[in-house]
């Protein structure tokens, strides 16, 4: 059965709803998947737990052997000044590249959904290819271009590179949001004599905002954790992943674990808050209906 056939069948069988089967007893088979999922989650979280635990290790040079528990590394992260500088660079690069990629990508997403134009297939391909190209090729290509143009590598070249690979991801994310938008809302705005700018900023933009925020967060995450493309285009500039790569040979200081753990906790709290608040909103809506 092909996919299309499967879809057709699933559409054909819509009504009436069959009575839900009652599980008469919970057999062994019903436990396999939950137990497997539990083991899978533990497996996925092992290196995270390891990194977190070793951020409390009172390590001297390398942070491989457990010595003793201390809060010291959390309280004095910037004693290892190189880690903090690298982290600061990563933040600046992440924020700048995110803003640039989000603006460029959102504009493209709106144009793709809302307007008809020539070369649509070509443009779609140009947007798809950066996501289908291995990072090492993107990095080496840009580095070859900068080399032949005689551009000095540094913060600017890294920001250019990160913006480039984030644009496509922004387009995909925002496009999904634009295509769920009801054009009637904008038409209503125009009917009420809103200028194109007013219609955009007071109707389209607020409705797109959740998609734009999701795209920006994704861009920042991609940029912040990128190593491969950065390594080719950073020259002597240090970023957080690059710092880890370089110090991997002689041992990572516990301060790096502190920063990574703090970023992890912040990201998890952000995501969980968003999840729980949207679940609560769903409940409220369900009550109203």
């Amino acid at each position, binding site marked *: 059965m*092909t996919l299309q056939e499967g879809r057709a069948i699933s559409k054909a069988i819509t009504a009436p709803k*069959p009575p839900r089967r009652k599980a008469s007893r919970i057999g062994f088979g019903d436990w396999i998947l939950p137990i497997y999922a539990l083991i899978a989650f533990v497996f996925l979280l092992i290196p*995270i737990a390891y990194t977190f635990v070793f951020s409390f290790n009172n390590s001297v040079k390398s942070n491989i052997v457990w010595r003793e528990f201390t809060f010291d590394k959390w309280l004095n992260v910037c004693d290892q000044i190189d880690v903090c500088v690298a982290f600061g660079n990563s933040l600046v690069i992440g924020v700048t590249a995110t803003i640039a990629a989000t603006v460029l990508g959102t504009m493209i997403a709106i144009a793709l959904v809302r307007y008809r134009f020539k070369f649509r297939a070509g443009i779609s391909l140009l947007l798809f290819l950066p996501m289908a190209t291995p990072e090492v090729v993107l990095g080496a*290509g840009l580095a070859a271009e900068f*080399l032949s143009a005689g551009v000095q590598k540094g913060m600017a070249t890294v920001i250019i590179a990160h913006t480039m690979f984030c644009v496509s991801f922004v387009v995909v994310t925002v496009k999904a949001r634009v295509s*769920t938008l009801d054009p009637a809302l904008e038409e209503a705005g125009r009917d009420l004599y809103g200028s194109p700018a007013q219609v955009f900023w007071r109707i389209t933009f607020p409705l797109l905002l959740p998609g734009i925020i999701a795209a920006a967060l994704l861009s920042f995450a991609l940029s912040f954790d990128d190593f491969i493309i950065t390594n*080719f285009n950073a020259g002597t500039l240090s970023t957080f992943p690059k710092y880890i790569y370089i110090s991997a040979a002689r041992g990572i200081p516990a301060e790096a674990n502190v920063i990574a753990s703090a*970023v992890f906790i912040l990201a*998890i709290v952000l995501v969980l808050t968003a999840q729980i608040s949207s*679940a609560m909103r769903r409940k409220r809506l369900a009550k109203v209906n």
Partner: protein
Amino acid sequence: MAFSAFATGTAQEQAPRRKSKIALLLLLPGILYLMLFFLVPLVSLVITSFQEPIPFGDFGEFQTAFKWENYVEVVDTYGAHILRSFGYAILATIFALLFSYPLAYFIGVKARRWPLLQNLMLVLVIAPFFISFLLRTLAWKSILSDESFVITSLKALSLMAPDAHFTGTGAAVVFGLTYNFIPFMTLPLYSALERLDTRLLEAGSDLYSTPATTFFKVTVPLSMTGIVSGVLLTFIPAAGDYINASRDFLGGTGTAMIGNVIESNFLVTLNYPVAAALSIILMAVILVMVTVYVKRSGTEDLL
């Protein structure tokens, strides 16, 4: 597009309006940017891959030429690395698929009655993304090092030869690649399985098919879009990766992948034409494999 699997939501029917001036203004900056920093770099890689050393020139100085022998030389010298990269990447993709499918099935189908639980489990799946890629790979290196609890107990139980190692071997590299790209596999699988109509599975069992037949004839074909997206999202970065195979991480001598060779030629030995030719080969092989794979799995509309 393969990656639209990540996006959910119902598309409103929209007749695109003709206002090509506004469309042009919206598209131009981004498209020019991608041309300048994505297409031009690819072209300059092609040009670099044909360059030859300047006679009596300095280290790392090349001039434009048409030295196609570069490609022959590269395949001769690094053929093993190229094969190894794709071998590791294929293995990692298969393991990631085997690991992710039951997990995605549980989250997307079995846990449907509890949407909050579903979302929380998805957060757990993407949690590894929130901690540095390099640090989580190094964490595995410590956890699975020769002196570690895991390896010493395996050896004590005679499940591993006393003089065997795990880190530094090809198996460790495949392990690392699998672990690092699991979320890329699980998410698209989840979004395909989440839409699976379970009544079709009941129909299968009503028609006296065994659970296995139902799975391979109904569930797998219906989740094919997710499988294809997941395979692409895992295979492409895995084939070009050079962190896991690096000696300071999970690799050792004899595990170097094509990415390691590109990196050392470009950044260490400044042998740009070799690095460029290898990049072009990597990209070409991936594009060919992706096209064939997507055509054969009957999901051309993905791209």
